[in-house]
């Protein structure tokens, strides 16, 4: 699949051939860093001063690079398609190769960063359990009730740290029911495997 670059995008990237190849490589590194950590205006200003160009030009160039990388990674486009897509920019072959290398080296990393953006449901992280026997409560003094206390740890996409922890309780017979239900869920994956293979 080919990427279709907008006119504005092409204009932003037109800055790149005007500078040294080493500078483009440096911009590539900055772009990836920004994708990981977020942008920083100071870096744009520093680079603009060194190259004696307006800050906006540097900013657009780097942002253009970032967008090129994210779009290519999002669609997992092949080497050939990538080169064909950047051909329209009219760069020299060396520059195209640099951009390609940047893409090939970092596309899986970029994809994992992008996938963090799309998590909206809490995901399972871990479960801790404890077997207790309740002996008494404020209203009843002599009891012997076995109960399982569970701590379910869930994670929300973005920062990868455990966001959500729920303390739950269940009894031994419900526990066995949960286990058999979830084992049936796992078995379902195995029988549908052939159908999944056909989909892909």
């Amino acid at each position, binding site marked *: 699949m080919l990427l279709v670059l907008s006119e504005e995008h092409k204009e932003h990237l037109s800055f790149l051939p005007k500078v040294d190849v080493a500078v483009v490589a440096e911009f590539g590194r900055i772009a990836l860093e920004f994708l990981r950590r977020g942008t920083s205006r100071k870096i744009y200003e520093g680079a603009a001063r060194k190259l004696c160009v307006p800050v906006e030009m540097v900013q657009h160039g780097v942002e253009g690079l970032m967008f090129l990388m994210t779009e290519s990674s999002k669609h997992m486009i092949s080497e050939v398609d990538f080169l064909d897509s950047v051909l329209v920019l009219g760069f020299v072959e060396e520059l195209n190769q640099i951009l390609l290398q940047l893409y090939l080296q970092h596309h899986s990393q970029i994809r994992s960063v992008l996938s963090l953006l799309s998590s909206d449901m809490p995901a399972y992280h871990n479960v801790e359990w404890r077997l207790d026997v309740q002996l008494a409560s404020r209203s*009843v003094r002599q*009891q012997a009730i076995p109960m399982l206390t569970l701590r*379910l740890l869930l994670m929300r996409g973005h920062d990868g740290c455990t966001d959500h922890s729920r*303390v739950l309780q269940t009894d*031994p017979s419900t526990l066995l029911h949960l286990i058999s239900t*979830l084992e049936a869920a796992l078995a379902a994956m195995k029988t549908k495997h052939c159908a999944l293979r056909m989909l892909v």
Partner: protein
Amino acid sequence: MELSESVQRGLQSLADPSVFDHTSFPALLDVSFRSLLSSHADRGVLDQSELKQLDQILLKQSHTAATTFILEAVKQNADKSTISSCLEELTFSAERIEIFCSTYQKHKKELEHLLASIGRQPPHVNDVSWRLQYHMKNGQVDKVNEPFYLISMNTESKGIPEDINFTCTMEQLQDLVGKLKDAAKSVEKASQM
């Protein structure tokens, strides 16, 4: 069993045949158990025909004493001999003790259940439902092509149901099931000790 002064006095009135005769005694007992077990407070619970001729204040004191005594007995899981000796000390006749004990036995389980449900507990898991889905793409990433599970734990806290929803991959689900199985094994081991 330790009982306060007012409870003792109320029970002593209940034991007295000149206050509560052989029709009003079982009537008050019945009313006492009923008022503990019914889910709605009934203002007219003491408006029984058998209890109409009694002094209303005395009636209320005895009713309060009886219900307090019953709850205390259930709470301490008192056996028949403890209850009998307690009532004997409060001048109950053997016949009345017998009537009380048989009514108490009838309702004991239900009362225990009622008392056990009072108190703070974490939400109780009743069931779990699951869905197996295939993630093809989303707004940020194309060609994801991964199967995943949507698990929903149905919990209940004081009658209010709540669903805890989360996703997991097959490996994560295997981890969850493995840990739950460990827990089940420990329950089995503990029950054999």
